[in-house]
């Protein structure tokens, strides 16, 4: 099994929580993931998943080199609401609490339980 297969759930999680990354191959098939996570929480999620797949990071087949967007100055990301979304679900994608999204979108949202497909929400990074 390649390292990419072994760590596929980690890469899926990165796509879900808004982490951007590039893959390269290091020493003897080592998977090197170099990227930027949108928040410290998102980065921690990925490290937790790494620890789950490879307890105590002993195998030496993955180098996870992540910076956080916060460190780079932060800013806002725009998320377009899809059918079936709610603030908690969107928050999970970015590793943040629903309330953080609510706080940044009170100007366009009247009720945190009512969001509609196509609405553009500001996501704090």
């Amino acid at each position: 099994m390649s390292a990419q297969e072994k760590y596929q759930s980690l890469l899926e999680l990165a796509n879900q929580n808004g982490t951007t990354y590039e893959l390269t191959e290091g020493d003897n098939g080592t998977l090197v993931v170099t990227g930027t996570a949108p928040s410290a929480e998102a980065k921690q999620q990925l490290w937790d998943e790494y620890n789950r797949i490879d307890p105590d990071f002993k195998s030496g087949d993955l180098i996870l080199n992540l910076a956080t967007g916060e460190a780079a100055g932060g800013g806002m990301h725009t998320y377009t609401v899809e059918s079936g979304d709610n603030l908690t679900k969107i928050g999970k994608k970015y590793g943040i609490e629903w309330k953080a999204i609510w706080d940044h979108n009170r100007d366009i949202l009247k009720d945190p339980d009512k969001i509609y497909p196509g609405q553009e929400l500001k996501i704090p990074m």
Partner: protein
Amino acid sequence: MRIKFLTLLSIAAMLFLAACGKSDADLAKAVNDKLSAEKIVGVTATVSGGVATLTGEVADITVKNRAETVAKTVEGITSVTNSVTTKPLPMATPAAADPSLTGKITENLKKAGCTGASVSVVGGKVTVTGEVPGAKYAECIQVIQQSGITGIDNQLKKGS
């Protein structure tokens, strides 16, 4: 009477087939349309007897998995054979020469309070030895992995 019955039966059978049978070609088109709608590039579907076979080469395994998930959602597809491959990855290059990486990692370990760990770097690959408190362990490994290395031999022990 008997002939009439058979005629009715065959008409019914034809109607049934027409209603349930999307041809393989139709299904293949549906899968390929859906793949491009989902912006999955480099994957082609063929369909035989309702079974979709995906081929092509993609950037990473998550795209391969997503292609399979998308193909399964197409009505009439009974199963998916995923023969998509992932592109060979470019070689990683160490962020700096070995002595400078060693110095940088040692300094960052000290800053993070991981003084029990020591590293040696050969060709971008780090060997970590020593012992750090269990509560610090993950953090110390993070510090090392975030320094631009291309390999790791982790012999670091967890202390109490």
